């Protein structure tokens, strides 16, 4: 119930990065970045995680803000789920992300939890990750010595393992806004509608030209150690017209690419069933002529 740690609240990014870098240097202190805290504080209080020091990112202005230019969308790491919902351009710039924000936890959590924090918590059930994968999002990782850009698809290395070094912060998430003649959808399946941990979360992107699918993305949440793309299912769709038969085959392939487990929320069997049903449903909805231009 109780955890003790130091909290520093730097107002500049450089200061935050210095603290993280120095902690790595002396080898003794466990220093963790704190964004919205809706996972970390719970874990600290339950003593699932311990830290000597937390670096609160809430005062760093450089991490706030949403930018759009030339079809590129970039959100600062401080962007909350509520920011996503309030931004008037986001419905076009990331329909699946807006849907995931809508069904994300509850209002109080949405007001403080950040998209970057959700990505970095490493949960396979993180709701914003399938949408961001379906949008081919890239993360900017910044340390004291500079920045690097990593595709989200390469970011996760395994269950709760990712490419971020302890002295780095995710500072930006960016993607290309969906093209015309495309659809970008997300569905969260959970045991209840509010404040629920996802049982299966699926995002798809389908872009079409002249009646053929040019780009397909299928991102599967909560059915593997990490959120992952069903790349072979995607490959089956690209270059083809999405007939009900092909959608069925691709949905079954998506199941093959999942590796769910039994847990307190659902069985692996039900999760496989739902990957199939929801992939089929979302691809069918995405292939609507009104959206992809038939």
């Amino acid at each position: 119930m109780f955890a003790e740690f130091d909290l520093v609240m730097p107002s500049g990014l450089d200061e935050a990065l210095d603290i993280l870098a120095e902690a790595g240097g002396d080898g003794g202190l466990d220093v963790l970045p704190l964004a919205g805290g809706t996972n970390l504080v719970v874990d600290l209080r339950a003593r699932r995680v311990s830290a000597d020091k937390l670096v609160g990112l809430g005062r760093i202005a450089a991490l706030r803000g949403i930018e759009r230019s030339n079809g590129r969308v970039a959100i600062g790491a401080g962007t909350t789920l509520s920011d996503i919902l309030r931004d008037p351009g986001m419905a076009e710039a990331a329909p699946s992300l807006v849907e995931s924000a809508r069904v994300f936890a509850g209002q109080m959590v949405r007001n403080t939890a950040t998209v970057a924090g959700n990505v970095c918590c490493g949960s396979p059930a993180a709701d914003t990750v399938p949408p961001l994968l379906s949008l081919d999002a890239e993360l900017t990782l910044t340390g004291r010595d500079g920045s690097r850009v990593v595709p989200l698809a390469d970011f996760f290395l395994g269950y709760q393992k990712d490419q971020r070094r302890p002295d780095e912060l995710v500072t930006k998430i960016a993607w290309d806004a969906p093209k015309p003649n495309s659809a970008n959808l997300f569905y969260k399946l959970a045991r209840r509608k509010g404040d629920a941990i996802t049982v299966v979360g699926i995002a798809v992107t389908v872009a079409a030209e002249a009646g053929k699918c040019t780009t397909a993305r299928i991102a599967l949440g909560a059915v593997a150690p990490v959120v992952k793309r069903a790349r072979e299912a995607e490959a089956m769709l690209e270059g083809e017209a999405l007939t009900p038969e092909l959608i069925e085959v691709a949905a079954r392939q998506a199941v093959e690419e999942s590796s769910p487990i039994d847990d307190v929320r659902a069985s692996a069997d039900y999760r496989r069933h739902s990957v199939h049903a929801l992939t089929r449903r979302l691809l069918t909805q995405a292939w609507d002529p009104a959206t992809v231009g038939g």
Partner: protein
Amino acid sequence: MTETESWANVNLRQVGRPLARSDAPGKAAGRTRYAGDYTMPNMLHAKVLRSPEASARLRRIDVSKARALPGVACVLTAADLPDRKASTDIPGQTGKKKLATDQQVLVKERVRYHGEPLALVAAETQTIAERAAELIDFELEPLPGVYDPFEAMKPGAPIVTAPDNVVGQHKVRKGDIAKGFAEADEIIENTFRTQFIEHAFLEPEVGLAWVDENDVINIRVATQVIEHFRPIAEAVGVPHNKVRILGALVGGGFGGKEDVTVEIYLALLAQATGRPVRLAYTREDSMFGHGKRHPFVITHRTGFTNDGRITAVKVTITADSGAYVFLSPYVLLYATVAAPGPYRVDNVHVDAVAAATNNMFTSAFRGFGAAQACVAHEAQMDEAAKALGIDRMELRRRNFLRTGDKLVTGHPIESAVWSDECMIKAWEALGERTPDAGPVKVGRGVATYQQSYGRITWLHDTSEAWVGVEVDGSVVVRSGVTDIGAGQVSALGQIAAELLGVGLDDVTIYNSDSAVTPLAGTTTATRGLYMTGNAVRLAAEAIRGRFLARAAREFGVEPGEVDLAESKAFLVDRPDTSMAFKDLVALCASEGVHRSELVMFRAPFTGQIDPETGQGRVHPDYAYGAHAVEVAVDTETGEVTVLKSVGAHDVGQAINPDAVAGQIEGGAAMGQGYALSEELCYEEGRLTTPSFSEYLIPTAMDVPRYQSIILESRSGLGPFGAKGIGEPALTPVAPAIANAVADAIGVRVFDLPITPEKIVMALRRAEAAE
């Protein structure tokens, strides 16, 4: 009843109106002080150390490191408490104790459930108390346990409660069951399973205890039952008059604060340290800290004629009592009486048993066994309707108990039975049917019920109240009643205001203090209004009678010609002839007319029922009503959305219709969780769903706009003909939802909760069978 005659001429002015409850402003403004908001100087903070094993032997416990930690005032283990037992005396009772209900306060040797307390710590701060608890070194030797009531009753099973793990048994034998089934054209038999659930009140258990200058152990605690001072006193070894329980407004009870929770730990620590001690459970502590709803396995066999008349009912109930007895035998009795449902059945056979296991102990929970029984009997009616080709409501209508009928126990029903009226109203309120949309299928369901109000009649229930009028005309009510959020206190104010002709604001109520408020009995069993309302009514009526007599003398008329209202005494036929209430009170005061009254209201007292046949009187009376719902089921994912949810209940007389609607809406939400999402999972007795992240109560996003319909037969045994609504509001909800889901998808899920996964599996099985 003769007691209801005296109010027959009262023209109701306060009762029956949706007045702003007396507890509302404080709650709305955040001023209300709950038990956890009280602190004292020099106060210690407590922590309970619990067993991580469900079945084990405590080989060793060493608290020396914990005691040595600076800031630790006290660490107690069983070794410090020779012979201390917590008895599950039936709350508020006057002495007769059941057999084999005693529980060790702290584990001496045998751990019987996951979470059983091993040690108590009191320290200067909460953090130190937690650290000290972590420093306690103990060794548990795992022992074979039993985690299923059927296994527990087999020969050779590990014994949790001597001699044979059977902790409760009830029977009904009525008519000729063989003949009944022989006369049946159609026999429907199904087995239903219900789950462990958590009360999930907003306010976890909390209390503050101190020993005063008279050696009285005072405990300010969130409880439904201040009468627990008796078992607490016995557990800590002092006379009953040396323990005082002070309540506070309670943040939800639902039966989960009906048993003793933190009180004995607080009393022991305060006794040992001589300092005030506060103990506040976290949500996770609370999951281990009070008994759960009993999981039931119910096999229900019902015979019908082709025209839909029930010829026979045979019900077998097996309940998991968990590691201690608590109220299991009584929960089981309620289930036994409710088993056939609100229907006329001549041939009935019920066998009910509760067995001890190494699961979490189970005890009181809103609906108290009748809720589980309702899950089975209402599903049976729908399954029978389908098999017989008769409309579901028509089938119920052909079998409903009617006013004047006898219960399955042979006792005549004391009040009106308005099941049909309620069912019609609830169903009609669903309005136009929502259409199906692709894989999303819409279904509707209704459920009716029979739920007792008032406690078992051989427990000889009583309630005392004191009403007094100050010389300035303001009114004081003293009642021990605990207010668990339903407006129990405000209702008493409305009753007193009604009878004395003053406003609700003119009444101040002192409640929930075993030292200064007359003992009102428990806020449980849907008895609060029935019992405490009647006690306040009787007390206020006595004063009213004296005031009317004095006013009549002043006016030169007979008392029957005078009435009290709007803070005046006046002539019924000539309201202009009046005097201010405060002037009348001043006159009475100057002449020594007694302006206060202490009364005891007694429920019907009976002996026990016949144990072999279940015949006799069990409860004072029963409530009847219905709940109807419309749901949408996504047949691809199994997700259920409750679209409409309507409760229609005959409450006898609503004292405050807004408070009644609050109960109906709360019951609808709680029942929805019971039906669809809530389940405490135990693996070999270990709780695997210990927080609100895994234990899923409905959120605001999950519930529709609930509708409440209040019917008033004015036939109940409560004040002004009231019945009760606390438990009835919940009981039919889960079965109505189960029936709606079955209606939507054409197959039934027999085990609660009806999760998306179970729906998908049921549809898959049905498809495979085709």
